[in-house]
């Protein structure tokens, strides 16, 4: 299924998302450069930098996925192409978070005191902590606004990578507040707050990854299609089921749906009534109606079977 075959609304959303993802990359690079300039010895600010770099992953993955989804399937990839999208993101967050927790727990245990001295800016001299706070606030607010827009687009597209990206943007704003609090506490002479804030940032990232990973691996391996943030079955199961049992010749039906990124691959099993032998036309008619259920259901197969597969009974 190429991007051009998406319904107009989704096509527009996809193009907008691609543009937003490119803007995100640019914003994150600028933000990382700004943070590097002010980071100094503060562990909390270094954690913010690590997070900025991790936040490069989801837009990259999304852009790559959007390219992949634009290519049609072939003999080797009969289901079309899909990417490891949010699995990669989950692993990156997990690794980054664990590293932050480890290094900062060590720093706390050793009693390392962050030294934040004077800086020159705006033609004067001031405590470098102020610059850190300024940069942190700015670099947290922009991704927050991007995240708000991405959430809306992700809902239209039903895209999990974009959802994860948006969620991470919100998380980044939260950790930004943590980091600012860490720097302010250092200003008040509470030296341990710096490494503690960085450690908490790591914990938030790990929490985020742990929430993301089961869904990500499940989608790739053996789970049915779920809603955007995982868990519940996607409503398309029930919609397909309703259409499948409607014809008078159908005695029973079962549905299984896999998430292939933007679109689903759906298989609808129908058991005909024992006195009916459905014609090809009847089956084709049913398939056409099933594909109209949702734009994501365009890849739907109808299988006429004497009895339902065990998993669907």
């Amino acid at each position, binding site marked *: 299924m190429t991007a051009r075959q998406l319904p107009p609304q989704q096509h527009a959303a996809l193009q907008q998302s691609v543009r937003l993802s490119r803007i995100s990359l640019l914003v994150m690079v600028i933000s990382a450069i700004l943070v590097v300039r002010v980071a100094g010895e503060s562990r909390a600010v270094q954690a913010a930098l690590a997070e900025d770099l991790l936040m490069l992953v989801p837009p990259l993955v999304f852009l790559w996925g959007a390219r992949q989804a634009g290519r049609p399937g072939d003999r080797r990839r009969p289901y079309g192409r899909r990417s490891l999208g949010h699995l990669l993101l989950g692993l990156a967050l997990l690794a980054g978070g664990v590293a932050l927790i480890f290094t900062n727990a060590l720093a706390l245990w050793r009693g390392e005191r962050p030294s*934040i001295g004077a800086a020159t800016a705006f033609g004067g001299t001031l405590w470098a902590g102020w610059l850190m706070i300024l940069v942190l606030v700015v670099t947290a607010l922009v991704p927050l606004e991007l995240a708000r827009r991405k959430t809306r687009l992700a809902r239209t597209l039903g895209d999990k990578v974009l959802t994860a990206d948006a969620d991470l943007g919100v998380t980044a704003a939260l950790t930004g507040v943590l980091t600012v609090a860490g720097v302010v506490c250092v200003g008040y002479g509470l030296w341990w707050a710096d490494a503690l804030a960085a450690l908490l940032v790591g914990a938030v990232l790990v929490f985020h990854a742990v929430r993301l990973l089961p869904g990500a691996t499940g989608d790739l391996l053996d789970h049915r299609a779920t809603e955007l943030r995982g868990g519940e079955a996607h409503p398309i199961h029930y919609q397909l089921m309703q259409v499948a049992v409607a014809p008078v010749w159908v005695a029973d039906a079962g549905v299984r749906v896999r998430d292939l990124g933007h679109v689903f691959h759906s298989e609808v099993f129908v058991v005909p009534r024992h006195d009916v032998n459905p014609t090809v036309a009847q089956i084709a008619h049913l398939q056409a109606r099933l594909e109209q259920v949702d734009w994501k259901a365009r890849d739907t197969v109808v299988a006429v079977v004497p009895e339902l597969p065990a998993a669907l009974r």
Partner: protein
Amino acid sequence: MRRLVAALCMVLALSGCSGGFPRDPQGTLPRVSDGTLRVGVSERDPYTRVEDDGGVTGTEATLVQGYATSIGAQVEWVRGSTSELMVQLSNGDVDLVIGGLREDTPVTRGATLTRPYAREVTSSGTRFGLVLAAPAGENAFLTSVETYLIQHGSFS
């Protein structure tokens, strides 16, 4: 979220108004101001020279003397090797260490290097920055010293 940001701004605004921000965990700056500044000196001409009468001269001695005057402190010189003095700095037995330290000098935990106050070039053409060493995390003191270095150093 918005409330949190607002609360944070309040805290920042308040802390900006009241003096004593940033603060030192060990209170170095309030202790040395109008008191005694203990300066560790390792001899390294022309930055530091220990005279026969026990006095200390040299470019860095002058710089530190000027800083001490600016906060109303008397300088007490403590002589030693750089490595001994770094340990004393970490233990809080001296407040500053001078002696032609470069910005790539390894420091023990508990000590930190200031920003460079001047840049020099070795005969082989390597550029390096000259720094002082201060106790780690004493941010009011560090900021005070560095502000003086920015205003009186020759770093461009």
